[in-house]
């Protein structure tokens, strides 16, 4: 193990850094330490760290140092990141889903009236994610397709059934800004 006092804090900084850590930044954190000493500490710890680890390495990138995984593990990492159920939605998709959840069965023109923006492409995304489904056509002029939430919707949001969805009125107290 390296014994230098600054080794561990600098390693911790490398770990949290979103951009490559530069010597200049280190000098700002440790203004009393001579720059050469900082450089030496950094070089030593990088050499030591890279000799020790086979999974994570510190590389010199665009004028600084950056901790990254080694390329040989990228496939496993991708496969791990794909295991995460993507409950993640864009704001537009979330809005469209909300209208469908609360107003189903509902047509695209009705969704657009409430949202005030074109919603065709978000409908497609939600259909692909199997969060919504088509429910036949509405018996009005043009016979537009009606949409409703699919089975995965309840699973996704941990609802036993649709009646578990809180109503706007119930959430009034929680949703209105404080002081009202």
């Amino acid at each position: 193990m390296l014994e230098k006092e600054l080794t561990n804090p600098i390693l911790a900084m490398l770990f949290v850094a979103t951009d490559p850590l530069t010597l200049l930044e280190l000098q700002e954190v440790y203004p009393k330490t001579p720059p050469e000493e900082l450089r030496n500490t950094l070089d030593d710890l990088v050499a030591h760290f890279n000799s020790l680890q086979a999974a994570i390495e510190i590389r010199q990138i665009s004028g600084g140092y950056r901790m990254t995984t080694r390329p040989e593990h990228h496939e496993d990492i991708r496969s791990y990141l794909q295991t995460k159920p993507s409950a993640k939605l864009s704001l537009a998709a979330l809005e469209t889903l909300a209208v469908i959840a609360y107003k189903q069965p509902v047509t695209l023109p009705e969704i657009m009236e409430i949202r005030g923006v074109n919603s065709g492409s978000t409908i497609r995304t939600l259909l692909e994610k199997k969060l919504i489904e088509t429910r036949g056509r509405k018996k009005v002029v043009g016979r537009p397709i009606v949409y409703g939430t699919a089975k995965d919707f309840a699973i996704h949001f941990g609802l036993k059934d649709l009646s578990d969805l809180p109503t706007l009125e119930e959430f009034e107290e929680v949703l209105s800004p404080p002081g009202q």
Partner: protein
Amino acid sequence: MATDVTGAAGLTAPPQTYNQAYSVHLEIFEGPLDLLLHLIRQQEIDIYDISLAQITDQYLRYLEMMKDLNVTVAGDFLVMAATLIHIKSRMLLPAEPDSETDQEIEEFRKDLVQQLLEHEKFKHAAQMLYERETVELSVWPRGDNEFEEEEKELVSATVFDLVSAFHQMVERYKERIVLEVKGEVVTVQEKIEEIRRLLRVQEAILFSFFFEMKVSRLHLVMTLFALLELTKVHEIRLIQKGAFQDIRIQSCLKKN
């Protein structure tokens, strides 16, 4: 400041001036139960032996003090004050032979003690959370993830996100309708359409909503006509739960 959670910090702090000392206290009392606990703990009496009369006096004196200091006393404090005064007034009445009142009062006292003890447990639990949070706020996970760049704008949605999104849309929708109706030529038919559109996104409209729209008197008159017309044809229902309460406008139409 860690001890603030227990409500003890302000007590041990040396009082500088009255104002300063009390402003410290006021921040600590989250509600009436907090204040009652403080009053009891301050006297170092066994909580099971508290005297209702005494604690009521102290509680009211404290609220007086807050008033003197021009501190707005939150409603929760006043509700408890009213309850305590009510109980105390019953204690002052000449005791009835069957002493049913006595029993009721003793029942109330027991319940209050139970509630205070329960409340105190959670204050200690909150203190534990506070300490854990302090530790956790000094460790960092890794910064941005090179692998998740494309997911940055996405939110991992919860039921709350869903209902919030819907809430915001409904608010926006109402604003849009308000903007559209600012023109001066108004007809009852337009108002009928407006009400129908509002009821499409909401279970009910409050009557006061139309006043909050800040439109001209003519608009309001037309809205009234529209409401009457829709009521007459049984398309909507007007509900008022009690005198002076807001009127709810609900649709009578079945969905689809």
